[in-house]
């Protein structure tokens, strides 16, 4: 391979049992420690996540010291009519997408099942 060629990135299958990480902004943590459904809404149908088995919580938060980290399960998202797939980016090979319309109730259901594995260092 020449110096100008890049190693092809393997797209991995995400199983229903796989965990997905989502960074959580401090203003999305409620007083009771639950994550607001606002954290699982996006401007478009594609919600960015990190595929847990391809990264670590620390790496997911590396450039985002203010944020916390929540974990959701791929299979749960698929039951909500979402597509879940690996979408590696040059700057983040663990990047994945939860794609589908995020109605308020779908975002709420995701939030209710999300587990906050690393709380933000402080609330704003």
């Amino acid at each position, binding site marked *: 391979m020449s110096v100008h060629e890049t190693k092809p990135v393997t797209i991995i299958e995400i199983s229903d049992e796989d965990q997905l990480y989502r*960074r959580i902004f401090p*203003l999305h943590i409620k007083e009771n420690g639950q994550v607001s459904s*606002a*954290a699982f*809404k*996006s*401007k478009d149908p594609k919600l960015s996540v990190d595929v847990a088995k391809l990264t670590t919580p620390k790496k997911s938060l590396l450039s985002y010291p203010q944020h916390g980290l929540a974990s959701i399960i791929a299979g749960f998202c698929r039951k909500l009519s979402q597509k879940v797939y690996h979408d590696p980016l040059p700057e983040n090979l663990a990047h994945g997408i939860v794609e589908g319309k995020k109605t*308020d*109730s779908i975002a709420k259901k995701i939030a209710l099942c999300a587990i906050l594995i690393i709380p933000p260092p402080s609330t704003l």
Partner: protein
Amino acid sequence: MPLGTFVDTEYQEKSSVSPSLEEWQSDFASDVTIHDAETLLPIAGERELWALPDEFTPVTSSGRVSANSYVIGNFGLRLKDKANLEYTLLISSAFLTNKDIIPVHAAGQKDWVAATWRDPRLSLFLNRCPQVLSKMTEIMKLTNNWDSYEGVSVSFETSARTIAVLGETFLMLHRISQNLPIPFIAPCPDGSIQLEWEKDQKELEIIIPFSADQQIRALRTMREKEEFIEETINSSSDVAEYLLWLMED
């Protein structure tokens, strides 16, 4: 809005010499650029926003503004009527609402800050629920990509609509001797604002969309029954009804 409803007025006879710049600056906070009223209100239509009688002509205005909070202190307006008699309208503080927006530029600030007349409906609400204004102030400081996923900042207009909805809901509940429970307030990545309440196994979300053309949405969650009911709402009275549903045993 009648002029005398919620502002203090000070009558000043026209003097032979127009107020000097120094005199203006000594009346109010000095860290504001004085603008000619014609600059502020370039078109006649905008003057209607001030709810001024037609015979009044704005002369100039001044006040203290902050880019970090949308509370305007000591805002003053000099008016001159057809008889050249001058009046000073002194507003002790003004809160943002989605109506009667007066653009004001503060010296040294980069952006225009929109202020409004003090709305008495909001005064009671914001005095009783100051946490709402402080949370909205924090949210309005957010810049694009605040959530690390390219979330957009929340606009002034969305914030103003949010406070207006909460203020009106507060008053409706107040009239039936109910208190407005303080909501959890969250920014959404598309610039909307989400208000959340919960009691026992019930939760209520009210979403104020980033666009005034879209309807306010409601989501009621009954966790025990695993029921999620989405609805659009038309007015703050609907919000009050949902809150009464949430608070009932």
